[in-house]
């Protein structure tokens, strides 16, 4: 089976302004593949290189070496992003727009024909349970509603691959549950989902496979049950701590 998302020997360096140091290596020779219909959890402590990897996948940052492909197209080409949906962490969408207007805006960017776009807006708003609030300006939305409108914009083009950056970050338990249910529903629809999260319990519940990144290197990758058994641990949290060499205080 061909990978939907493929990363080959990816290296990302940033120039720093620190004295005596010219570059900071965020990702060191990362290889990764995500296959159709999979939910892949991308884990790692802060500063591990997750965001840098996602930034390359989304075309925000050019790779220093190696390459990444979406549907076989290099991420350096904007067209590679035609079939993806992206939910960033903590975004404050255009406050002066309503949810409906926001979705129409993103739909136009994808060149979705007008009648199809109206149907798609209806479906997506129903999916994220924002139909009643569709005509209200986004500035009046709660944090949970804002996150759901973010999910709606990520789904407007009916993407085959969803890239979610900490989708439940900052949400209350009900909000988290709703987002988790949505991810589950999208998985059942056959969507491929690549998401980063610090909520290991959540990752354990929804992911088919996970990858653990630390210091810019992929330390472990595989099915959660396999990793738990290989590392002789009780749960994903313990695997995570072991792979990143975290020493518990005595």
């Amino acid at each position, binding site marked *: 089976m061909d990978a939907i998302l493929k990363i080959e020997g990816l290296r990302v360096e940033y120039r720093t302004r620190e004295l005596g140091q010219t570059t900071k290596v965020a990702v060191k020779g990362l290889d990764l593949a995500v296959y159709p219909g999979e939910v892949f959890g991308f884990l790692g402590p802060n500063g591990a290189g997750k965001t840098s990897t996602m930034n390359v996948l989304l075309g925000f940052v050019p790779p220093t070496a190696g390459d990444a492909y979406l549907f076989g197209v290099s991420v350096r080409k904007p067209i590679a992003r035609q079939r993806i949906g992206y939910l*960033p962490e903590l975004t404050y969408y255009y406050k*002066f727009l309503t949810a409906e207007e926001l979705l129409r805006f993103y739909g*136009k960017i994808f060149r979705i024909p007008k009648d199809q776009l109206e149907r798609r807006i209806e479906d997506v708003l129903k999916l994220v349970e924002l139909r009643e609030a569709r005509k209200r300006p986004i500035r009046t939305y709660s944090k949970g509603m804002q996150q759901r409108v*973010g999910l709606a914009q990520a789904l407007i083009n009916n993407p085959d691959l969803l890239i979610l950056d900490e989708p439940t970050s900052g949400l209350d338990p009900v909000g988290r549950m709703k987002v988790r249910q949505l991810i589950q529903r999208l998985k059942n629809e056959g969507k491929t989902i690549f998401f980063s999260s610090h909520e290991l319990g959540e990752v354990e519940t929804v992911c088919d496979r996970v990858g653990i990144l630390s210091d810019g290197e992929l330390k472990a990758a595989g099915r959660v049950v396999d990793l738990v058994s290989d590392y002789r641990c009780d749960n994903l949290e313990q695997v995570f701590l072991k792979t990143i060499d975290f020493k518990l205080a005595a």
Partner: protein
Amino acid sequence: MSTAQSIYPPVQAIAAVVIRELYRRKDFYVLFVLTALITLVLGSVNFFSEEKVVRYLKEICLFLIWVSSIVIAITTAARQIPAERENRTLFPLLAKPVTRNHVVLGKFLGCWYASGLCLFVFYLFFAVISGAREHAWPIAHYFQGFMLHWFLLGVVTALALLGSIVFAAPSSNNTITLVVVTGILLLAGHLNKMALNLSEPMHTLVYAIYYALPHLEFFDMRELIIHSRPTVPWLIWLAALLYATVYAAIFLSATCFLFRKKAIN
């Protein structure tokens, strides 16, 4: 698919959001109400002879329109890209099949169209006020004046967008662009005369600045409108529009170049 067909939908969509933002914000309404109020109050005062009052009224009204339109163009353009970065809306936008050039072009067109709409309302108000007093409707003057003014706002908008990439804070960009535009409007036309009295190398330097700067004063038709002088020959008028287009294109190209180089993570 042709290049125009492939770039236009994202550019058009981004521009439409800018226009929507402008009419949902209070900036334009406040400036319009202030302009209208000052003009109407001054218009109600009757001193000197009738003709002079009308000219004085037209001068004040056009001056307020110039100030308001430049303020609207600069403040609208200066906040666009910084707000996208601050609110993080740039991330979902660039994660779609949109390039940074699309963003710059969309923002430019949105700001330019939006300031054009505001300008149209201002000129309509001006035409009604002066028409009611003078019982004359010099449409050709208004058309020439409006178009020159709108193209000048295109140069100002492109300059403010460039400033929004160079300067970190929108407030400093607002101030610097406003000072630069005012400076050009007031001084650029006199730089060549200044250069004549200077010794080398200042003579050459000031002359170089004189030729490099966009001469925004070319676009000021206020005197012709106020004193009902003949319109500008149409070929010269067209050349002025072309001149503004070239400068706006230079500033936009620089903005696209710098924005592509800018790290956004």
